[in-house]
């Protein structure tokens, strides 16, 4: 047996890795080879010493010392989670357009089949807002909105209180604006026109009709809805049918972006959609003809811009740097124009 081979046996013996046969081999060699015997004794001594190294313990409890940091991690995670959801929604601004457009078609078509009268405007809210604009629509997790968007919360709540379980949303107190909306719509005959004006969203055929956030647009809107024959018909859907559709096309309905078609409700209830910048430093609120920029931390109004034309304004999105945002205005002709406001410039 060669000494180098024995070297490994020695080492493995130090780790109790030898079987009986190997151990015998080793021992036999050691009786014959003084050099190996000497080395083995030294290594054995070393290994024994290493095994007796003190099992040191920390002088203080390390876990106690990091508890505050662990708490901070928990808090960070909680906020990161909500942030993540919000950003996820923001991203949809650019990607969901085509899907939403398809959803609109589904709505328009399904609604066109039905000619009976509705006595509930809430169903309209769902349908109209879903189809009112195909560009800004984006999906949302209903639960997110409870945190992020007051106006949408109310809408969501309204849907729930009126529906038969197509949506599952936590109940909230019914806001006055919506209540008002429901009341007016129950007056027979006026339902379609009134409820539409309340929401101030261009009904269904988004490019052929438009309404305005201001009261003066009411007449204009009525004009518009008369022109679009099928629009009026669509307004006369019974609630149940609407809900059925909503349930079938649940995913599409869920894609409703809170800022879409919220203008009317916003002006009436002063519950406005806050469009947060990606860095969340500021948010934009569109209120009638005014676009206002607020600081998130203080809710202080930083700047305002007046829209130059009359029409329904909708927030489109922020750039990733939070330096500019885009909104679009659909005028009474159904013309949609996009505008970019750069925060670093004096004029839009």
């Amino acid at each position, binding site marked *: 047996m060669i000494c180098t081979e024995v070297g490994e046996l020695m080492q493995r013996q130090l780790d109790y890795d030898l079987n009986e046969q190997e151990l015998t081999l080793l021992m036999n060699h050691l*009786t014959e080879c003084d050099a190996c015997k000497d080395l083995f004794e030294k290594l054995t*001594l070393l290994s024994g010493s290493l095994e007796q*190294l003190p099992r040191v313990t920390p002088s203080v409890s390390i876990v106690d010392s990091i508890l505050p940091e662990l708490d901070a991690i928990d808090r960070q995670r909680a906020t990161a989670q909500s942030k993540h959801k919000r950003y996820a929604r923001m991203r949809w601004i650019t990607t969901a357009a085509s899907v939403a457009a398809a959803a609109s078609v589904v709505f328009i078509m399904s609604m066109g089949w039905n000619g009976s009268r509705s006595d509930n405007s809430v169903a309209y809210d769902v349908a109209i807002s879903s189809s009112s604009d195909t560009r800004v629509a984006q999906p949302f997790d209903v639960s997110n909105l409870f945190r992020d968007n007051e106006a949408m919360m109310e809408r969501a709540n309204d849907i729930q209180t009126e529906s038969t379980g197509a949506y599952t949303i936590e109940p909230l107190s019914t806001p006055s604006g919506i209540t008002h909306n429901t009341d007016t719509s129950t007056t027979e005959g006026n339902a379609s026109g009134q409820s539409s004006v309340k929401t101030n969203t261009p009904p269904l055929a988004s490019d052929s009709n438009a309404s305005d956030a201001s009261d003066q647009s009411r007449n204009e809107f009525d004009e518009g809805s008369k022109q679009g024959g099928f629009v009026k018909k669509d307004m006369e859907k019974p609630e149940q049918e609407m809900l059925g559709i909503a349930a079938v096309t649940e995913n599409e309905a869920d894609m409703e972006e809170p800022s879409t078609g919220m203008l009317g409700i916003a002006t009436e209830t002063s519950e406005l959609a806050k469009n947060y910048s990606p860095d969340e430093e500021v948010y934009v609120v569109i209120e009638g003809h005014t676009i206002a920029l607020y600081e998130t931390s203080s809710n202080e109004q930083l700047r305002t811009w007046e829209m130059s034309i009359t029409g329904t304004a909708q927030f489109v999105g922020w750039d990733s740097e939070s330096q500019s945002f885009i909104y679009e205005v659909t005028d009474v002709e159904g013309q949609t124009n996009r505008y970019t406001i750069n925060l670093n410039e004096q004029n839009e």
Partner: protein
Amino acid sequence: MICFIVVESINEKLYYLTKIISNKNNDNSYKAATFKHITSSIRLHERGSFHVVEPSLIKSAQSGDREALVTLLREIENHVYRTAYYILNNEQDALDASQEALIRIYTKIDTYEEKAQFKTWVQRIVTNICIDKFRRSKPTVSIEEHELVFQEKSNVEHDVLAAFAMDDIRQAIEQLPEHHRTVVVLRYLQDFSYNEIAASLDLPLNTVKSYLFRARQQLQQLLQDYQKGGVRG
């Protein structure tokens, strides 16, 4: 179960012990050395370094039970610290590394998979952090400082059987390359098997063996130099 392993292991050694003593060879000095070695390894096991974290505790911690997770950290904190202490050879660095490791375990507990042993998963985290620290900072601790820390903070065990002074051993371990040092620490301070070391360091089994064997040879050489009054460090 743990007790069973220990008992079995001790029995095994007693068995070898009898075998050796009854062996026909009559070399007394070799018998004595082997005997001492075996008894010391039995003593090692009696010191109770075997500790297994309850799988149910890990499960609770993974499912989001914060209290369970903190309890889990408390159970492993000494093991984490011990490894860090012997790799970094400095109390403050060891505390820092242990904190970092425990925080990482806290945030990554959901990535632990049962197919790995929990203790090897933990040691992988702490050794990675230590090796990182080790690479970033050149050893600046003087012998005096390190001895001071050692006497102040550690539970120094005076063992007349130990042939080498503990300080010498720690000094020698510090001379080892990082991977050799880490293997030695896991073998002797965590009582890991070759396989457990391999799993912790993500190294092939043969590499673990060769590191460990080479490390022991280097240590032996260093300690011999120390004893002969050679230059330390």
